[in-house]
């Protein structure tokens, strides 16, 4: 357990602010990336990240040691993103299609490195087209390197549901890749 996991009853105003700064230093970028994975829009991700940290600050005194700080912060973030996605504003106003799409250029035969880059961009692009429940599981599993159990805790889905979503999400990706003619050994 690191220092910032420790917040106890003797906390003062100064130590609270310091603790809050440490939380932002430790999780700021991770949370903003997580948020981006849900909302797919840079400026929205920034706004929501700020709202999430303010929520964290507001709730610091409710943090219990029965979960780790990371779990607690991530859960606030994930719920905040989901609230945003189901909000009237998001469903009616926002066009969630801002992830850069780089098409594979044809004509010139690109070198290996370029192929790799194009493939990477394409894979990321495909992940972002997945429905949010699959994208969420895949992101937490492959990007955050979290266990199924942890993902279950964070998302509120049962462990078997998480496993199912990972499997289904991967199947959707593979199907898409195969249809596009990516062969055995791609992306390795």
């Amino acid at each position, binding site marked *: 357990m690191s220092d910032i996991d420790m917040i106890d009853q003797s906390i003062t105003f100064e130590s609270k602010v310091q603790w809050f700064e440490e939380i932002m*230093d430790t999780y700021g970028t991770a949370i903003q990336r997580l948020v981006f994975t849900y909302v797919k829009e840079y400026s929205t991700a*920034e706004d929501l990240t700020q709202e999430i940290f303010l929520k964290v600050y507001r709730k610091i005194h409710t943090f219990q040691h029965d979960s780790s700080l990371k779990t607690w912060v991530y859960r606030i973030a994930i719920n905040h993103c*989901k609230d945003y*996605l189901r909000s009237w504003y998001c469903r009616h106003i926002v066009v969630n299609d801002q992830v850069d799409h780089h098409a594979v250029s044809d004509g010139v035969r690109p070198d290996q490195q370029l192929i790799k880059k194009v493939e990477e961009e394409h894979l990321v692009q495909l992940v972002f087209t997945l429905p949010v429940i699959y994208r969420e599981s895949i992101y937490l599993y492959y990007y955050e390197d979290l266990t199924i159990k942890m993902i279950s805790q964070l998302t509120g889905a049962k462990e078997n549901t998480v496993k199912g979503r990972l499997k289904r999400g991967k199947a959707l990706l593979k199907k898409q890749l195969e249809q596009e003619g990516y062969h055995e050994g791609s992306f390795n």
Partner: protein
Amino acid sequence: MKDPLINLKAAMDKTVFSEVNFSDQQKNRTLDLIETIDDQQLELFILAALHQTDQSGYDLICWFEKEPQLQPLLNDEGRLYIILHQLEQKQWIGSTWTSEKRPIKIYHLNKLGKKQLSMTKKETDDVLSHNAWQLNFKGGW
């Protein structure tokens, strides 16, 4: 085909996340906003305390001192009186003076303050609740 997602992290870092970082500017902007939150929370705790019983400012400070989780909210006692004054101006609370030789100001909750308090209580906080909702993937978004 092998698991195409093995390299997802590297791929995301190189592409879509190359511009997604939490900057110092964002951090400072967030820090600028936390004072407002402390004030709002203090207001709420004061309303809750006055809901239980009418009290003087000194009583409130004693009460705050006994509640360890409230202490970080109250950086200095002067702030409590500023907020009490603001609450009076908003007419959420009122006050009367005792008839002693050295009168003491006793604060009480007003109608508006009661309303405010009950509204906040109704605000269900699902942030930490597990089963807040399930995404409807058929509906998409």
